[in-house]
């Protein structure tokens, strides 16, 4: 099992400008709530799943992915079990197990929306360099003080995770046992784990402040950026394509072609 994280790649989605991708993530998330046709929703969900597996063939081994799928299916099952509105579709003779059009439709809509949003987010995370995203956000107006909160978090998070692992190991080699039955002792051990982690984090933050301010951070209300990337022609083309695709889905959803 491994974590979901950005992975370098040469796909079209990778080469899109981060803000454009972010805008489409937000738009797509809103759209799945506008679409009420469960079959269109599931078509979209399956397309997203296909893109996702194309981007990362071992997505099944990403921590949390299987749980997401199970949760989506569980939502479907729960709605089928508890929503008995609409016409009866299947009747195995036990009321609990009957499937109605209302329950199935609502279940498909809710689970489809849930999975579509999660898959879109996965695609965004897999193909967007968080560092580039932070810089892009700063370039479109996010105050750089906040932008660098994001950048430094991205930098420090894996370091802190590694430090946590080291502290746990250091406890282990000094006879600390986490398989304690005694709650009081367990709390003490957790405190003894958190204290060095906290101190180490504060020390690191202190040094980072000196390092950043020691290079003029905060000197001026604005700053320049070396990277001058802008949305490219490809971003426009893809965006136009997506507008057409989503418009078609909406037209079908609202029954224009029926």
């Amino acid at each position, binding site marked *: 099992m491994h974590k979901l994280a950005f992975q370098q790649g040469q796909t079209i989605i990778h080469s899109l400008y981060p803000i454009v991708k972010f805008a489409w993530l937000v738009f797509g998330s809103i759209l799945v709530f506008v679409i009420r046709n469960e079959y269109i929703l599931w078509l979209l969900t399956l397309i997203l799943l296909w893109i996702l597996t194309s981007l990362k063939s071992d997505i099944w081994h990403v921590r949390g992915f299987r749980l997401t799928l199970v949760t989506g299916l569980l939502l479907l099952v729960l709605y089928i079990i508890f929503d008995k509105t609409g016409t009866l579709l299947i009747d195995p003779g036990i009321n609990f197990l009957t499937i109605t059009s209302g329950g199935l439709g609502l279940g498909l809509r809710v689970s489809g929306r849930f999975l579509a949003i999660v898959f879109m987010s996965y695609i965004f995370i897999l193909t967007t360099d968080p560092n580039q995203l932070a810089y892009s956000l700063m370039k479109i107006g996010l105050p750089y003080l906040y932008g660098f909160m994001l950048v430094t978090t991205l930098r420090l998070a894996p370091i802190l995770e590694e430090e946590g692992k080291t502290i746990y*190991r250091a406890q282990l080699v*000094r006879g600390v046992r986490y398989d304690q039955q005694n709650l009081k002792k367990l709390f003490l051990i957790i405190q003894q784990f958190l204290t*060095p982690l906290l*101190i180490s984090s504060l020390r690191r933050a202190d040094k980072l402040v000196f390092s950043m301010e*020691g290079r003029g951070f905060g000197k001026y209300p604005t700053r320049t950026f*070396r990277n001058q990337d802008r949305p490219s022609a490809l971003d426009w083309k893809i965006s136009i394509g997506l507008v057409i695709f989503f418009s078609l889905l909406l037209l079908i959803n609202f029954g224009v072609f029926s």
Partner: protein
Amino acid sequence: MAMVEIQQFSYTYPGESEPVIHDINLSIEAGSFAVLIGKSGSGKSTLGKALAGFLFQDEKPNYSGKISIHGVDMTGLPIYQASDRVAYVQQNPEDQFCTLTSGDEIAFGLENNCLEPAEIDSRIDEVLAIVKGESIKERELSTLSGGEKQKVAIASLLALHPDVLILDEPTSNLDPFATQHIFETLHQIREKRDLTVIIIEHKLSQLLNFDPIIYEISDGTIKDREPEDVMRQPNPSSASRDNAKSENSQENAEKVLQLSGLSISLNDTQILDNISLNLSTGEFVALMGPNGSGKSTLLETIMGFHPIQSGSCTIFNQNRIRTKTSSLVNDIGYIFQNPDHQLFTQSVWDETTFTSKNLGCLTKQKIKQARNWLDKLGLSERVEDHPQRLSYGEKRRLNLVAALLHEPRLLLIDELLIGQDLENAHIWMFLLKDYAKRGNTVLLVNHHADLTQTYCDRVIYLDHGSIIVDLPTIEAFDALARLGYTASLPTSLMEADNA
């Protein structure tokens, strides 16, 4: 006018009653290459931070005297203004980085100063050329070696065109090759830029070729030192060979650890390749090799932190794969690199007895032994203090006592001597040697060839995950000399090699 002018400067840290440095007077000319030496905790870094203006950011900093750079008083400047004149490279480049790639890191200060993108790119190319780091321009910082990271750290400050560059032990985490390379880089920077370079460093012998002016901080005050005087300290290496030899031949030694064909891969990268070695009782073994050669991974694997992909590891006659780490802690002591990661309690005394208490072996004899150790390492006056109030060197000493008290039969130590002055380092190595002589085994990751030559029985030298040399100390260094690992040799052999 001198570039750096310090007059009657004293500084006391918040919460302390005594000044860490006092009545410092110093004048450094532009273009000088000054080296600050002194024992661990003597106040070298404090003076460096004062010069960079870092110490004057508190609401009421407790100082007296004056510090000026190029005629400008540094005590009243916010850091971002002080940074126009002075650049400060921290000990660990990891602490300094705030972005994710080399290019972004070097650009960071330039962007803050609102330089145009074209000018930023031009300066990045300029400083990377100076530090010979053109190939790492767009690399992710996490993929760089220790030496490359230090180059980026230096380049990121050099790009700001400071008058003075201060470096606080920039090579403490680096192997001898990378250290030599960084020193040469600094020398070139100074030559090309006419920059004033102030370096806080213990590795003086490697700096002498660059014509430094040496200042020593001792008991909070500063004095000029001649390089010859500093280097005239007793060189124990010449007396060490017989010592190492006589201690090395131990009969009745039992096998403590046996590794055979051990290979380890982490994140699809092979770190250790076909490692075979034995450790016996009474041995004090140095594990040496360049940064990234797999030394720490080897120690971690012995301790059971990584799964063994191929080969075998037998420890105290038990198969490592079938043995839990928790069941070995009575017999193995482990000291990690960072002292802060292994201090868990509220007082020095609690920390000392922590492991023994956890293992249920804190006897009266151990308590007596603890007092004895603390006294030997100069910590007996600090037993009530919180461990985090200790200096870096004191914390390392505490780590050592805390790992030794339950008397593990095998002691694994990852870089104990980082940032330590030579005098302290000798005391520690003597202590470890003595511990091994009492029938225990010590495996120490160490870059210090002179100390290894003096105290260790045997050297295991790793490079690219493989054992290059595994021989008694004297033969090992001879073999390393033959193989061309000259930067890893003790001073005596290096001099002979040069001659």
